[in-house]
């Protein structure tokens, strides 16, 4: 199964769509430091990762290799490894470090209340 193609028309433009209302995924505490958790957002499966230095990233949750659950993968500051066959994907861009097809990387931020906000159409790369 391949990751859903979610690139919005304005995704390529660089500066992210300004008008898009983000999806509120709830408190950052749901995601332990150094791990990922998956969310169903508007019918799409998104994995959100919280690296040890504090940054938060979001990628499509299904590995393009053979459908592995990326939220269950191991990560460092740069990449996540799929738990099934250990293919790697850059957290910031979704590009594979092992030659697989890329994942969609989504814009994600933590707001003042500590909630995680996801911009489904503000794909960083798709």
């Amino acid at each position, binding site marked *: *199964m391949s990751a859903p193609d979610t690139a919005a028309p304005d995704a390529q433009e660089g500066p992210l769509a300004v008008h898009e209302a983000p999806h509120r995924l709830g408190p950052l*505490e*749901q*995601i*332990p*430091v*150094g*791990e990922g*958790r*998956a*969310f*169903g957002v508007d*019918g*799409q*499966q998104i*994995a959100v990762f919280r690296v*040890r230095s504090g940054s938060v990233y979001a990628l499509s*949750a*299904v590995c393009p290799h*053979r*459908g*592995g*659950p*990326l*939220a*269950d*993968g*191991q*990560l*460092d*500051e740069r*990449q*996540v*490894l799929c*738990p*099934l*066959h*250990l293919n*790697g994907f850059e957290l910031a861009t979704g590009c594979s470090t*092992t*030659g697989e097809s890329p994942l969609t990387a989504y814009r994600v931020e933590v707001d003042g209340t500590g909630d995680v906000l996801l911009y489904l159409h503000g794909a960083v790369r798709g």
Partner: protein
Amino acid sequence: MTALQDRPLTATEDGPVRSRLVVIGNGMAGARTVEEILARGGAEQFSVTMFGDEPYGNYNRIMLSHVLSGEETDEDIYLNTLDWYADNDISLHAGHRVVRVDRFAKIVTAVHTATGDVAEAGYDKLIIATGSSSFMPRMDGLTRPDGSLTDGVFAFRTIDDTRGMIAYAEHDHHHRAVVIGGGLLGLEAARGLQRFGLSVDVVHAGAHLMNAQLGAAGADILRAGVERLGIGVHLSARTTGILGDGRVTGVALQDREALPCDMVVIAAGIRPNVELAVTSGFTVERAIVVDDFMRTVDDPDVYAVGECVQHRGQVYGLVAPLWEQAGVLADQITGADVTAAYHGSRTATKLKVAGMEVAAMGLQEPERDTDEQVLFAEPKRGVYKSLIIRDDKLVGATVLGDTSKVAFLMQAFDQGLPLPQERLSMLFELGAPSAEVGAAELDPQAQVCNCNGVSKAQLCSAVESGCTSVQGVMDRTRAGKGCGSCKLMVKQIVEWAAGDRVQEDPSVHWYVPGIPMDKPALMRAIREQGLRSVSAVFAALAPDGQEDARSKMGLGSLLKMMWNDEYVDERDARFINDRVHANIQRDGTFSVVPQMKGGVTSPAQLRRIADVAEKWQVPMVKLTGGQRIDLLGVRKEDLPAVWADLEMPSGYAYGKSFRTVKTCVGQEFCRFGVGDSTNLGIALESRFQGLESPAKIKMAVSGCPRNCAESYVKDVGIVAIDGGRWEIYVGGAAGAHIRKGDLLATVDDPETAERLTGRFMQYYREHAKWLERTYAFVPRVGLDHLKAVIVEDSLGIGADLDTRMQSSIDAYRDPWHEAHRPATPGQFRTGLPLQVLPQVPIR
């Protein structure tokens, strides 16, 4: 007329719109293809309808010979019962023969073979898997005026044919049978019929038996064997007619006397079932022509698979090629792997013909002057071996009687493996190619990594493009990253291809890739600087303090081993299996293997496992190769509840850790037992449960040298010998590598065996490389060294090893207690929230 399934695209309750897949032919290829499609999540894409003109579910046609010979009953050979179709939401129209495919309206029309009812189904994708039928040579008296076979004449293709033959053969007044055709099927039929007390003759038009597979010399030996069984063989004999009036009384032969008989079985070859394809306008030569994607050349929405297809000019009559075809078809039709392609199969057959082992592949005889033939014949024992070698590659082999070397020969034939110079060893002793011959001679197309499908040529081109270290080539091509059994071969090829450009990759000595230190240096630094967590190790020892995901698991395991209770356990350092204490499966579900010490269980335990399996609808309950029970396909969310209901400790089937101890019944029950193997096994498993180590550790204890627990091939294997003593073997393996363990010591009592086992384990835990199993570790450090350190305590560290092992044992906690208090938020939250799980087949 009933219109079945003639609705357009179907939408399931919550799922996406599914397209309609129709399969014609419910035999081995058709049903297998559907299984492969389902395994790729096809149930979400397709609503499946199957037509089969046999009124049953799919059965194992190969087994019909066994049904005839009485080794199997016809009940036992079903591969897919009617329930299977229902469970998988497949509409099966058994007993319906498809008579027309309207390619333009995309509708198939079928007729019920008994009632004549007509049914139709529309399709978006169609698969033709109509198989073959028995070839019926033209001869007088074969059929009745209505076209059906004369009473007493049988084909040998279907379960109904077989049942008919058995009923007829059992009849008191039937004493003689003639089988027409001396190929595999004919000989099987002849042997089977003998069981009913019939005297059997085989009439074969060819000059020797099994001429499709065997050369004349081999066939002569086979013939002698067949005759020894009491079967008459008539070669170069052409049947001209069936004698008798309404009932068989004999067969007439050209230029020979007629053979009297009461029944005739025709096994004169097969013909692909192509009439439907011909009348529906598909390209048919010898069979339905398909491309490398198993698509008909006429219509991209119509695929064909099995004996009814012709691929690159070849038509196959054995199942192995069909399996490959089914996989490719499924990859293509589901889009799971659109690069999948079928390139044809080199058929190597290994068969039991009339009770004799026969293997045949490739050429039967030398063809060119330069072809080399290695030949051994021992007609009296019915042994014959002939190998045809060209340019140092095996291009053909015929083996009769003793097939012990056949596995190697098939591999050598299939993959173009280099052959041992000592040709004799290919016939008689364990003939794996020696490492040195390896790289240079290997065929460029030979697949080196069987997990990731990497050929020698791909490895070489990675080297050409500038990767000159073994690690670099492995990263680039993914070779060696599956089971790892090909790593040595990959290394040799890279070294050969790179020649003096080869770079020794310093990282091969590092314990984990992210920290440039070997194990002793790393352990020293950790101890000196008091680094108790994985993040502390990165901060202190990694270049720029950079974390590395690929190093976390190895470091976590090492720190736990070194610090025990003082280890600061950061959950993100753990691999998913160790975070949720279960083994992740291909669809993101998990397997649960409770501890069952020494493979010994109780009715109460079994009952509890059964209850849990039912309550949680576990898709498969399986006995493992490690003597315990695996509950497969458990949802991540359900894990805590499953453990709580089981009330059994974890069996650690998921970790790089101590796993299990296999035992045999031993002294308590077995009449040969000379030691209490079960109790020692249970003691070992209780003592070492769950301990982390550089790689898995598996043990076994056998009650006598018959070695029923396979102790010689375990990381630690213990064997009771006469006189109350115990042998301890270490470094054995029978997984990706086979190695007989080395005898470390023979001791007088189980307590000493337990102590030395612990000492060996601790030494291994402290000195082995990450992921280095004992089968590599023991030869690397040397048996003599191990004996000295562990048994004779030459370094004086024995007591320390024992103490450190004891601290680890004391620090052990059963991880399944986390059922009651999760270690992290969302520890058991699904990784694929919208996925319908589980996808593994339900049994």
